[in-house]
């Protein structure tokens, strides 16, 4: 079995233990695999809570560099719970970013000279033209609710207020519209 395939078969905790065991010798393949898995989770957390792609990218660097440092130094006591540690660090860092006590410059100062930026997988991108053609097939209400909702990631009650509808009604229209768009885009079952 090729080495990368073998690494892909390991659980997050097993990868974390390998990184911790290597310590200063650095198991770069295990580190790359762990970052490949965790970077999208951190980025999504950042997008959800900060609503800013650059801030989410900064969060990925900050959190994963800190995680690798802790693992190598043996300061992460339970490597098997690495995902929980990463989530906790995300929460703490986002709070600092919101308070304004987090500075991008600090990230560059701390890690910039190490030539050790995390290589995060490129985010998934949908073809805007194909999506627009699918949006055209929706009824007017459904289309407006989708546009109002996702242009600025607005909750149902805010969209409802703008349209003079009930929040429940907006959620029903939204759910139906997303179902139709998934069908049009060829997304099935619980794929996405």
């Amino acid at each position, binding site marked *: 079995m090729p080495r990368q395939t073998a690494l892909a078969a390991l659980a997050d905790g097993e990868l974390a233990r390998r990184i911790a065991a290597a310590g200063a010798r650095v198991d770069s393949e295990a580190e790359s695999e762990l970052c490949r898995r965790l970077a999208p989770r951190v980025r999504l957390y950042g997008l959800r809570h900060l609503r800013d792609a650059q801030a989410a990218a900064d969060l990925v660097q900050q959190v994963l560099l800190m995680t690798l440092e802790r693992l190598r130094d043996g300061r992460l006591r339970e490597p098997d719970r690495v995902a929980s540690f990463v989530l906790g660090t995300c929460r703490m860092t986002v709070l600092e970013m919101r308070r304004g006590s987090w500075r991008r410059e600090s990230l560059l100062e701390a890690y910039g000279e190490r030539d050790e930026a995390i290589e995060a997988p490129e985010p998934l991108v949908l073809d805007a033209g194909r999506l627009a053609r699918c949006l055209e097939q929706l009824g007017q209400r459904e289309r407006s*609710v989708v546009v109002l909702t996702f242009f600025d990631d607005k909750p149902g009650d805010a969209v409802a207020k703008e349209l003079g509808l009930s929040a429940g009604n907006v959620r029903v229209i939204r759910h139906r519209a997303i179902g139709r768009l998934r069908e049009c885009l060829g997304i099935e079952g619980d794929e996405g």
Partner: protein
Amino acid sequence: MSCARPLELETLVAYWLGELPAAVEAPLEEHVFGCAHCTRRLEALAAFSSGVRAAVKAGLVAAVITSPLLEEMKRQGMRIREYAPSRGGTVACTIAAEDDLVVGRLAAPLAGVTRLDLRQIVEIDGRVVLDERLEDIPFDPAAGEVLSVPSASALKKMPAHVARLRLIAVEGALEREIGEYAFAHAPSPQ
């Protein structure tokens, strides 16, 4: 890569839009952080969200929007032309290559209206090339206007034409026109 307890799509959407209470959100995040399958599904939702945004910003989507959304688009730096013909009136309009969007502001007495249709008739050199009726458009009766956004990318390819928009209130089998607005479009000189 599978999950024994995959999250419902509706729950993921509610999470993404910040609709869940903190007591539900926290364990959901724990699950996603430990689950590659649900991470992939959330990634697909995030891609869908940014795809809608990209399609709107590229002027690929025709839709009825609201005033708060229009303000948010301006805040995000979109270049938008607005035209507000009076009821029964005509306005000269255009779209330039650098414009992202054109908005038609249709002021109308909407109080008491429960269903609203929008009929669009497009004429080129006096010949009707499009006559379509958009049924049950969304509107806020209190807003007193409907904001109609055509596809900017399609409009940029159109020759000179007149677009007549008619708002029709529908009450059971009864219909009542509550406003007609004409947009005399001329292509922008390049």
